[in-house]
């Protein structure tokens, strides 16, 4: 697979510290949903801290209270099916229990060349672009139609 890939970032502020028992429904599912991603069709890569299975300890320019999650996929469809039509949905549907109400867009998609691993800084830049200017070929959401070609990267799978 040498075509462009789709990168995604989603962020959130947990209602309580992760070790709080009220977050147990979320933290107890992390390894499961991460394994589902690793094995999902079209999965390429996800952000993981050294020595950990996820990035829940990692912090970004968005702030110390913000959890970040980032991954790369072969296509929109592959990402959408993972997020909304896999075991991941069972965790996502309870987001209001565990995460604060977002006051700004909290997820962003962008196209990247094959073989590129996005950095957290790059991802945050794309989210801030979306927040500042609305959807564009360089920072968009599931509902927006832009392709890799629109972003100047040549054709992806779809």
């Amino acid at each position, binding site marked *: 697979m040498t075509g462009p890939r789709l990168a995604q970032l989603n962020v959130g502020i947990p209602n309580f510290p992760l070790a709080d028992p009220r977050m147990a429904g979320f933290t107890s599912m992390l390894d499961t949903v991460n394994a589902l991603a690793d094995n999902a069709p079209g999965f390429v890569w996800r952000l993981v801290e050294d020595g950990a299975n996820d990035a829940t300890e990692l912090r970004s320019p968005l702030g110390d209270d913000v959890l970040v999650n980032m991954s790369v996929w072969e296509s929109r469809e592959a990402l959408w099916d993972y997020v909304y*039509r*896999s*075991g*991941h*949905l*069972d965790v*996502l*549907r309870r987001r*209001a229990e565990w995460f604060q109400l977002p006051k700004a867009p909290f997820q962003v998609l962008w196209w990247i060349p094959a073989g590129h691993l996005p950095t957290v800084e790059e991802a945050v830049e794309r989210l801030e672009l979306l927040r500042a200017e609305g959807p564009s070929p360089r920072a968009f959401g599931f509902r927006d139609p832009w392709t890799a070609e629109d972003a100047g990267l040549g054709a992806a799978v779809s």
Partner: protein
Amino acid sequence: MEDIDAIAVLQDPVRRRLYEYVVAQDGAVSRSEAAEAAGVQRTLAAFHLDKLVGAGLLETESRRLGGQSGPGAGRPAKLYRRSGAEVQFSVPARDYRTAADLLAEVAEVARLDTALQAAARREGRAAAQPVKDLAAASAVLAARGYQPCPDGPVLRLANCPFHVLSQRHPGLVCGMNLALLEGLLDAAPGLRARMDARPGLCCVVVENSKTNDH
């Protein structure tokens, strides 16, 4: 063909039975299978099935059922399955979809998931009837349009009644749907609804609650 004509195609009772059988199956079925299920001759079934395809209510595919190919393997069988089309007609004109989409959009931004799920659970409970086993649950779910099909120990639901909304607002609407079904099965202590999302189906399955408790 206009939606009203496509709906009218279902008026014939035999055709209706064939349609309901085909859409309730997981995957495509042959004429013979559909004919047997509807209790009619194969050629009559073929006539009706092709009318349903013509109306856009079913789709066909071609497959070698025996898994052979080459000379002597026989013609591939023509199989039928539900089409992806949505057909609606209301008199007088009603457009609940636009309102639902707007309400869902606002509820999503305000992250009203928990409140919506509570409301859906109450709604489900209010509509709940005593249901003693999976077969009885299947009848209740079929009446609500879910197209239940058994898959080993669980009932999978082939149709999402909120399909377009669930594509546009999946977290919100699928969470609502699960809560609704949980409420509906409240009077069925041996059964439970749980989420088991996969592409192409409703995200909820119904099973005996003693199975694999986790």
